[in-house]
C-alpha cells in the first residue's frame, strides 16, 4: 500500500467527513440551544433522503430535478423538525435534559417506523447517473459527484458560519445558546429562537441525508439511525454544542473511519468512530462538555 | 500574609493545636483568581466562623479544602497530615464532613435513608454483604438505625423521618444535611451558610445544636453572613476578602478591625 492508497484514504475520509460535518453541525446547533442529545436526529437524515427520492422520482405526481427536490426536502424536513419540537419536546422542556433525551428515543422509533410502515422497507436510491472517478494531479481520484458533495458541504458550512456570525438570527441563536436566561432578559423571544434552531438543525440533518444518499445509495429506512452514532462521534469529538468543533470532528471521524478501513480492517469501520469517541470521552471527560457557539 | 495574620490576636497560640491548617491556598478559574493565598487555622474543638463579603472566595475555599477543586498551590493539613490533592471521597474519609450552600439532599430518598446513607463502614454497602454476611449487616443496620433515630431526635426531624427529601423545606434540608454529616462522625464539620434561608425559630435551634455539638468536642468551621450569629456563636472568626484572609481572631477583636469594617461595608461609617 503506497502513497496512492494513503491519498485515496485521505480523500475518501474527507468526502465522508463532508457528509458527517453537515449532519454534525445540525445536531450540535440544536444541542447548543436545547441542551439534550437528540436521538431522533438520525430520522431527519432518513426523511431528507427519502423525500428527495420521492420528489425527484415523481411519487407525489411531480418529478423535480434533483437539486430542487433536495431543497424542497430540506425545507420540508426543517418544518418537520419544528413540528416535532412543538409536539414532543416543548411540552416537557422544563423537566430537565433526561426526559427530553428519553423522549427523543421514542420519537426516533415513531418517525422511523411511520416512514417504514408507509413506504416499506425497499431499498431506495436517488436517480443520479454513475460517474467514474477522475484523476486529479495523478494523486487521487474523485467523481464529480463526490466533488459536488464536498462543495455542497463547504457551502453549507459557510452558510451556517455566515448565518451565525453575520445575521441577527444567528446572533440570537448564539446568545440563546450562550445564556438562555440572559437572552430572555435581553428581550429575545427564546421560544421562537429555539424553534428556528430546530428548523435549521432538522434541515441540516435532511441535507446530510441527501448528501449521504448521493454517495451511498441505496438505503433503507434505518439509514439515519445507523449513521447517527457516527454523527454523535463527530459532534462529541468537536465539543458538543460547538459548530466549528463539529465540523473539525466530522473530518477527523471521516478520516479515522477510512484509514481504519484501509489499513486495519474494513469490517470495523463504524467501530473506529466509536472507539475514537470513547477514547476522547475518557481522556477529556469534562473538557468536551458543551458548549455554546 | 504575615502582616494580615498578626492582627489576629489568637493566631500565635493556635498554631500547635490546629486541627485544620490552611496555608497559602490559591485557586484560579481561568483568569479569575477566586482564592488568592488564603491561610488560617482552625483550633481543635472550636467553632470558627468564616466571613466575608459576597465573592470573597469562601465557598471556593471550602471546595479546595474538601478536594472538590485542586488548588493551584498551597497546602491543607488535617492533624498535621497533608490532605490537599486527595479526592473528595478521601478527604471525607479523613474525617472532614461538609455541607453545601444549596443543600444536596437525596431528594428521592426518605429522611431516614438520607441519614443512614451517611453512616461509615457499613458491611451492607458491599454488594455481597447482604447475601454473605446477613447477620453482621442486620446488626450493623440496627445500630445505624439507632443512631439515625438519635440524630433525628437531636435535629427534631423525627416527625419527618419517612418523608422524602424532596418534600422538605429549604431549612429542613439544611438540617438534614447537617444530620448526614453528623452520621459520618467527622473530626471537623464544614458548614456552608448553615442558616441561610432557614426560618428564625429554626435558626436559633440549629445554632443551639451546633454549640451543643461543640460542647461534645466537635470542631466546626462555618461560613456565615449574619454578623449577629458569628459574633454570638463563634470562638474565632476568619475574615476573607478578595480571595485572601484579611484577619482572624476573637469575634470582638475582628469586629472592630477597621479593615474588616471597610471590607464589609465598603467604608461604611
Amino acid at each position: 500500500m503506497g502513497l496512492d492508497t494513503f491519498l485515496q484514504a485521505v480523500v475518501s475520509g474527507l468526502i465522508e467527513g463532508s457528509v458527517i460535518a453537515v449532519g454534525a453541525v445540525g445536531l450540535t446547533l440544536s444541542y447548543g440551544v436545547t441542551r439534550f442529545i437528540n436521538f431522533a436526529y438520525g430520522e431527519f437524515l432518513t426523511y431528507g433522503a427519502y423525500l428527495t427520492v420521492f420528489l425527484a422520482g415523481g411519487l407525489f405526481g411531480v418529478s423535480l430535478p434533483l437539486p430542487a427536490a433536495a431543497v424542497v426536502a430540506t425545507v420540508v424536513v426543517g418544518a418537520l423538525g419544528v413540528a416535532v419540537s412543538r409536539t414532543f419536546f416543548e411540552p416537557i422542556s422544563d423537566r430537565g435534559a433526561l426526559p427530553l433525551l428519553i423522549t427523543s428515543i421514542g420519537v426516533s422509533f415513531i418517525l422511523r417506523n411511520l416512514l417504514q410502515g408507509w413506504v416499506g422497507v425497499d431499498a431506495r436510491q436517488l436517480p443520479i447517473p454513475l460517474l467514474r472517478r477522475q484523476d486529479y494531479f495523478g494523486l487521487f481520484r474523485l467523481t464529480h459527484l463526490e466533488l459536488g458533495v464536498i462543495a455542497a458541504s463547504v457551502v453549507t458550512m459557510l452558510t451556517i458560519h455566515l448565518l451565525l456570525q453575520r445575521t441577527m438570527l444567528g446572533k440570537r441563536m448564539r446568545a440563546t445558546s450562550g445564556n438562555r436566561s440572559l437572552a430572555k432578559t435581553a428581550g429575545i423571544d427564546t421560544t421562537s429562537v429555539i424553534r428556528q434552531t430546530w428548523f435549521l438543525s432538522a434541515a441540516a440533518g435532511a441535507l446530510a441525508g441527501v448528501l449521504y444518499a448521493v454517495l451511498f445509495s441505496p438505503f433503507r429506512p434505518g439509514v439515519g439511525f445507523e449513521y447517527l452514532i457516527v454523527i454523535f462521534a463527530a459532534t462529541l469529538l468537536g465539543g458538543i454544542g460547538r459548530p466549528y468543533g463539529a465540523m473539525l470532528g466530522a473530518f477527523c471521524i471521516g478520516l479515522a473511519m477510512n484509514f481504519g478501513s484501509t489499513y486495519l480492517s474494513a469490517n470495523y469501520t463504524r467501530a473506529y468512530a466509536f472507539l475514537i469517541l470513547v477514547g476522547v470521552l475518557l481522556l477529556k471527560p469534562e473538557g468536551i462538555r458543551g458548549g455554546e457557539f | 500574609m504575615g502582616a494580615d495574620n498578626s492582627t489576629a490576636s489568637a493566631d500565635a497560640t493556635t498554631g500547635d493545636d490546629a486541627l485544620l491548617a490552611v496555608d497559602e491556598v490559591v485557586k484560579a478559574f481561568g483568569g479569575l483568581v477566586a482564592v488568592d493565598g488564603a491561610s488560617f487555622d482552625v483550633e481543635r474543638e472550636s467553632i470558627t466562623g468564616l466571613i466575608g463579603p459576597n465573592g470573597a472566595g469562601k465557598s471556593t475555599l471550602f471546595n479546595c479544602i474538601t478536594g472538590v477543586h485542586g488548588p493551584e498551590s498551597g497546602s491543607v493539613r488535617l492533624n498535621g497530615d497533608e490532605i490537599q490533592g486527595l479526592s473528595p471521597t478521601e478527604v471525607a474519609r479523613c474525617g472532614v464532613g461538609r455541607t453545601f450552600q444549596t443543600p444536596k439532599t437525596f431528594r428521592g430518598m426518605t429522611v431516614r435513608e438520607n441519614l443512614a446513607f451517611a453512616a461509615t463502614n457499613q458491611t451492607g454497602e458491599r454488594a455481597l454483604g447482604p447475601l454473605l454476611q446477613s447477620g453482621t449487616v442486620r446488626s450493623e443496620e440496627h445500630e445505624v438505625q439507632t443512631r439515625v433515630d438519635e440524630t433525628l431526635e437531636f435535629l427534631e426531624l423525627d416527625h419527618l423521618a419517612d418523608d422524602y427529601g424532596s418534600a422538605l423545606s429549604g431549612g429542613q434540608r439544611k438540617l438534614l444535611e447537617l444530620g448526614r454529616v453528623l452520621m459520618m462522625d467527622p473530626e471537623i464539620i464544614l458548614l456552608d451558610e448553615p442558616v441561610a434561608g432557614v426560618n428564625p425559630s429554626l435558626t436559633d435551634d440549629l445554632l443551639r445544636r451546633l454549640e451543643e455539638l461543640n460542647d461534645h468536642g466537635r470542631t466546626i468551621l462555618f461560613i456565615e453572613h449574619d454578623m449577629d450569629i458569628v459574633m454570638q456563636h463563634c470562638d474565632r472568626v476568619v475574615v476573607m476578602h478578595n480571595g485572601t484572609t484579611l484577619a482572624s481572631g476573637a469575634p470582638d477583636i475582628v469586629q472592630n478591625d477597621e479593615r474588616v469594617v471597610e471590607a464589609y461595608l465598603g467604608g461604611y461609617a
Partner: protein
Amino acid sequence: MEVDRRAFLRRTGGAATVTAIAGCTGDGDGDDDGDGGGGDNTTTGGDDSSLTIGVLLPFSGNYGWVGANVLPVVNMVVDEINEQGGIDGRQVSVVQGDTEASPDAAVSATDRLVNVENVDGVIGPTSITMSAVIDTLIENEVPVITPTAGTTSLDDRGGDYVFRTVSSDSLGGRAIAKAARDQQYNSLEDYERMALMVGNKEVFQSFKEPVRSSLKEFGGTVTTALDIRTGKASYSSEVQQMMESDPEICVLIASVEDSVKITEAGYQASYEGNWFVTQDQTNQDFLSQSENQVTNDVLGLNAAAYQSAQSAGRLDEFFEAITDYAGWDKGAKIFATNTYDAMNVMGLAMKQVAASSGDLTGPNVADAISTVATPPEETVTAYTAGASAIESGSDVDYEGLVGPINFDENGDIVAPFSIKIAQDGEWTEAGRLPPEAL
C-alpha cells in the same frame, strides 16, 4: 354476505393483512368484478373448513423486504387456488408470521402459526431464523417449503417435512466456481485468479466455503477472501483491497444494495476485472439499481430459468402477472419465482392428498410434496392445470419457474444452473450448467 366475505378474502389473501387490503382497494377493482360469481358455489365457514398457509418471514426490520417480496406471490397463487374452489372445497387463507429476522421473534411467530393458527403448511423461513424454528416445525409435523433459505446449514436437516425451492448454497457455490473456471459456461474466458467478497451475514457466508473449496478443486486460485460488513455506507476500501490482490474475477456474494455500491466502487476505482454474482443479485433489482456501464459483462448465477419455462413464455407471464397483481414497479423481485414454485407445490400437494381422500394432515401433505413434483407423471406448470389433472385422476409432475423442482432426499432441489451475463440492463443466458457437471 358470502360474496363480500370472499371478495375480502381474495383481496387480502385470506386472513392476511390489513396492509394487503389497502393496496388492492386501490388497484384491484378489476379483479374483483370478475369473480363475484365464481365464488358463489363455495362456502366458507369457520376455521375448521379453511386451510391455512403460514408465511413465516421477516416483515419488519432490515430483512422486511424478504417478506414483502414473497407475500404477494403467495397471495396470488392462493387466489388462484381459491378461484378453483379451493382444496377439497376448502378455501385457503394466508397468515403472516413476522420473524423480524430475529430468532426469539421467530420462535413466537412459529408458535403462533403452528399452535394458534394451526397452519397446514408454511412458506418460509429465511436462513437466519431457520435454526431457531426448524425443530418446532418438524415436531409439529408441519410441511414447510422455503423459497428463501439456501443456507448450507439446512443441507443435512431437510427432507420429510422441510423442503426448499431455492438451491442449496453449497451447490450454488460449486456452480459459481465451475462456471468461472470454464469458458464454455460463462462465454467470456477461463478465469483462474478469483477474489471473494462475502457479506458477513449467514445468507452470504453460506456460499463462501463451497466456492472456495470448489475453486481449488477445479484448479483455480483464490487471491483473497474478504468478509465485508453488510449495510455499510461505502465499500471503497474493501474494493481497493480486493483490487490489490489482482484477481481476474471477483465473486461478490452480498445483498443487492451492497452489491450495487461495491460494483459502483469498482467502476469508480477503475477495476479491470469482472464480477460474478449469485442468485441473490441475478435479477432485475440489481440491474435496475445500477448503471449499465457498471454491470455490463457481470456474470450471474441463477437456477436455470428452466428452459421450457422461458421458451414457453411462462417466466414473462409470471412477471407480468405478479407485477400487475402486487402493484410492483418491476417484475422480477428476489425470491419471487422461488415462491411461486413453493406455493404451487404446496397447493398441488394438498390437492393430491385431498384427491386421494386422505386427511389433510401434515405427514400426508409432506409426503405428497415430493410426489407432485417428481417425474415421470403428467407435467404441469401451474396450480390450475395441475389441480384439474389431479381431479381427473392422474399424477402430476410440477415443473417450476426456477427448475424442474425435483426434491432429493434432503428436500433440496437439484436443478440445472444458468449462467447469466448482464448486457444493457438485461440478463441474458451465457451458458447452462447441468447438475451432472458438478
